């Protein structure tokens, strides 16, 4: 039989699809969403893109905090006369259907005036009438149709982000001036001394001067600022010769037209600035929906439920939590502060914080730490420390997070800038000196001509275009880099450090095998039926793995917290749980997690859960070991040591039980030995190490969901290609170096004209764009070839 897939979300419907209107659904949730859409004439949603939806999640009580006016006030962008505007981040936005349905929200709730989706950012901006509807209703509606917004502590009191559009303005100004100046300078390229030209050239020239003013004083100001900064810190960056070139171009041209020496170089000047800005524009950040700056705030809830003295529940903002407050943490909620468990069965998943794969059980009176996620029924906790003082959040007070990593790195272009500046100035002075002897009247002419023609436009363009293009190519391979600098850093890496849990192991089903006596049909059925009743994650895992059996009602079922479960029918009794619980002395089995069970008080055997390593881990590590130093840095215990030793190249150092602080320190120690370190991790526990390392790469199963602050985000599916990416980065650097040589050739030709005193404006006007365009072509073609090779691997 063919598998039926859900009409709404496209998931496999399993054995019992829910049929409705001749369509199959995998669950009631999906069916409900379909009904909402169908009843509101919104079924066009399914015509645009089939199976675009997602299953709505249980959200009971989750958004109660939106009832609090104070919190709502901090979230919304605009509030006046009953009109409110909010910008919500919706991770599920992924296709045109999503845009369509979200922009038709007003069909579902008439309080909504307009909604507008920003697809690249995955946000929707909703304007609504606060008298007819509320933010909570809105969020509930969106959750109900499978578009649950993500609201975290990060959104709280977020200052309205100013979009920086200055580069677009500057590019516009430079392009406008460039085009007009080109037209105005055209006549004088061909004819000099012609009657009409003689008469009007003054007007033409001064118009060009006027057009170049905004270019020099507005569009090019970044280069002057950067050159000034470089000089002040005694560092000769590439912007110094550029700024010098622009300044000399402008002054010389102005003098030229004032004293009628010539037409000036306004065409080259505006063209130069335009091309330079184009390069800058090209390497701008392209993944607006990914954030590389996340800290714990993006994970933490904005509000939690506090239990007041008279036992009522109220939402309270996380920052307002004080020691002594009692909180209610529901299933699936995050514990925002260090606290003591008062009531309920805590089963806390710390994988995010510590990297440990198994959830831990806590008894009342135990301490629970911020960042853990409760994964069984609701619990009550008492706050010990405020948010900012909790164990996890303290990591962010480390100086590493305040440091701007990009500031300290010297790019390839800048490193060539120093030699270039010295070289150009030497040539300029020497040739000026020589001309002073031959023909003093031409000295200034030659001196300025050298500075003009040597302006390293092409050099400055090589890196932005190569790296900008590589950034896009990597993006297509689901390797998202923060900026182009990361590619340069990546090319220099000599040490690679990996986290274990979630990085080289998958978060999906671990490999499970059975050790023990063979089971009879009845026993297996009983096992499965007992597991059905338990919500323990291991039970769920095991339940999914075991083959289908008929449902047999149990006569009795008991759950012993932290020990195991017991089920019985008329004839048989089964105990599932820890070794001691089922009546077997504890045995060592390599610290792997195992579930033991006994039937009718006879020990049968155990299921062993193994960490599941990603496919090809062994291969990629042995490839990397060729020219990188490797190490594993795990927050987990040493249980996997043997397996890892087998899997990884011989002699790979393994470090277990690493605290977040310790990971950071480890990287720092390596860097003090002048190593260029790449850290690959996934959880918040790696956040410090990711920030400290030269290149921090976060592995993510789903890039739309969250990863800690890092330099690059890599889709887990492409983990095995990581080494290819490093090699590709190195090749990209080679491309840049080649184009440096190419542009130096142009400079040599230009310098020949300049030094011999023959530099006509028209030569400069041809040479400059020609060199720039050929560099852009060369780098684009070379990187595309590189990209194609990458695609084949």
């Amino acid at each position, binding site marked *: 039989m063919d598998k039926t897939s859900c009409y709404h979300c496209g998931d496999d419907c399993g054995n019992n699809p829910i049929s409705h*209107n001749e369509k199959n659904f995998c669950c009631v949730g999906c069916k*409900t969403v379909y*009904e*909402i859409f*169908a*009843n509101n*004439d*919104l*079924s*066009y949603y399914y*015509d*645009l893109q089939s199976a675009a939806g997602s299953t709505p999640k249980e959200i009971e009580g989750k958004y109660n905090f939106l009832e609090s006016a104070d919190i709502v006030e901090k979230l919304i962008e605009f509030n006046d006369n009953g009109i409110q505007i909010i910008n919500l981040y919706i991770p599920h936005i992924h296709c*045109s259907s999503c*845009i*369509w349905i979200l*922009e*038709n929200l007003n*069909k579902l709730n008439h309080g909504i005036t307009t909604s*507008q*989706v*920003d*697809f*690249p*950012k995955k946000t929707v901006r909703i304007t609504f009438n606060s008298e007819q509807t509320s933010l909570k209703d809105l969020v509930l509606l969106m959750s109900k149709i499978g578009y649950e917004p993500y609201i975290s502590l990060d959104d709280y009191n977020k200052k309205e982000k100013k*979009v920086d*559009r200055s580069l*677009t*303005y500057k590019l*516009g100004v430079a392009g*406008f001036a460039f085009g*007009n100046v080109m037209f105005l300078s055209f006549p004088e390229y061909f004819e000099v001394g012609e009657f*009409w030209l003689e*008469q*009007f050239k003054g*007007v033409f020239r001064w*118009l060009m001067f006027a057009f170049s003013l905004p270019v020099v004083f507005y569009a090019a100001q970044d280069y002057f600022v950067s050159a000034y900064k470089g000089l002040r810190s005694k560092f000769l960056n590439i912007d110094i010769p550029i700024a010098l070139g622009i300044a000399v171009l402008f002054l010389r041209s102005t003098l030229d037209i004032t004293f009628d020496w010539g037409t000036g170089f306004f065409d080259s000047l505006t063209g130069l600035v335009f091309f330079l800005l184009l390069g800058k524009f090209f390497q701008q950040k392209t993944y607006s929906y990914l954030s590389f700056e996340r800290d714990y705030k993006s994970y933490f809830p904005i509000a939690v439920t506090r239990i007041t003295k008279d036992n009522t529940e109220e939402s309270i903002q996380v920052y307002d939590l004080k020691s002594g407050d009692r909180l209610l943490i529901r299933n699936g909620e995050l514990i925002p502060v260090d606290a003591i468990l008062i009531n309920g069965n805590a089963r806390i998943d710390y994988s995010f914080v510590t990297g440990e794969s198994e959830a831990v059980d806590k008894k009342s009176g135990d301490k629970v730490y911020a960042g853990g996620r409760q994964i069984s029924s609701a619990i009550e906790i008492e706050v010990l420390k405020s948010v900012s003082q909790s164990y996890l959040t303290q990591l962010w007070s480390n100086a590493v997070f305040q440091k701007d990593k990009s500031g300290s790195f010297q790019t390839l272009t800048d490193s060539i800038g120093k030699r270039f500046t010295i070289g150009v100035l030497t040539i300029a002075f020497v040739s000026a000196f020589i001309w002073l002897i031959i023909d003093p009247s031409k000295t200034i002419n030659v001196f300025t001509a050298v500075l003009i023609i040597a302006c390293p436009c092409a050099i400055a363009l090589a890196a932005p275009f190569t790296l900008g293009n590589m950034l896009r190519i990597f993006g297509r391979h689901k390797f998202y880099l923060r900026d182009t600098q990361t590619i340069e850093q990546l090319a220099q890496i000599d040490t690679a450090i990996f986290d274990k849990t979630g990085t080289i192991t998958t978060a999906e089903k671990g490999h499970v095998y059975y050790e023990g006596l063979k089971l009879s049909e009845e026993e297996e059925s009983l096992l499965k039926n007992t597991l059905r009743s338990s919500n323990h994650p291991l039970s769920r895992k095991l339940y999914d793995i075991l083959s289908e059996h008929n449902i047999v009602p149990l006569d009795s079922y008991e759950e012993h917290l932290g020990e195991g479960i017991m089920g019985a029918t008329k004839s048989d009794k089964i105990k599932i749980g820890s070794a001691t619980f089922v009546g077997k002395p504890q045995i060592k089995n390599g610290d792997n997690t195992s579930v033991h069970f006994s039937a009718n008080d006879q020990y049968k055997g155990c299921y062993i859960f193994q960490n599941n390593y990603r496919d090809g881990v062994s291969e990629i590590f042995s490839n990397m070991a060729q020219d990188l130093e490797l190490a594993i840095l795990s927050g987990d215990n040493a249980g996997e040591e043997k397996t890892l030793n087998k899997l990884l190249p011989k002699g790979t150092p393994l470090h277990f039980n690493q605290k977040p602080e310790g990971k950071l320190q480890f990287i720092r120690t390596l860097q003090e030995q002048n190593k260029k370190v790449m850290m690959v991790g996934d959880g918040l526990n790696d956040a410090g190490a990711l920030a400290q390392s030269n290149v921090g790469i976060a592995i993510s199963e789903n890039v739309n969901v969250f990863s800690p602050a890092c330099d690059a985000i890599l889709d887990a599916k492409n983990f095995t290609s990581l080494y290819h990416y490093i090699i590709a980065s190195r090749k990209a650097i080679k491309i840049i170096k080649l184009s440096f040589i190419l542009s130096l050739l142009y400079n040599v030709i230009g310098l020949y004209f300049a030094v011999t005193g023959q530099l006509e404006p028209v030569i400069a006007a041809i040479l400059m764009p020609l060199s720039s365009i050929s560099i852009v072509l060369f780098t684009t073609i070379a990187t595309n070839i590189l990209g194609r090779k990458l695609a084949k691997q």
Partner: protein
Amino acid sequence: MSVIYLLLTLSIIVAVVFFAAFIMAIKNGQYDDSYTPSVRMLFEDELVKKTNEETEKDI
């Protein structure tokens, strides 16, 4: 030949008008999201598209 002054003035005015329009477009955020509008324009104008099945009011 003073007509050339007139022509120059006119052409520059036209250029400046378009430039101003461009600046306005940036200011209004037209270049902030260059993808969504390209999808949005393909949607049907009238969104109502009745399904033939009887609608159940049991949400």
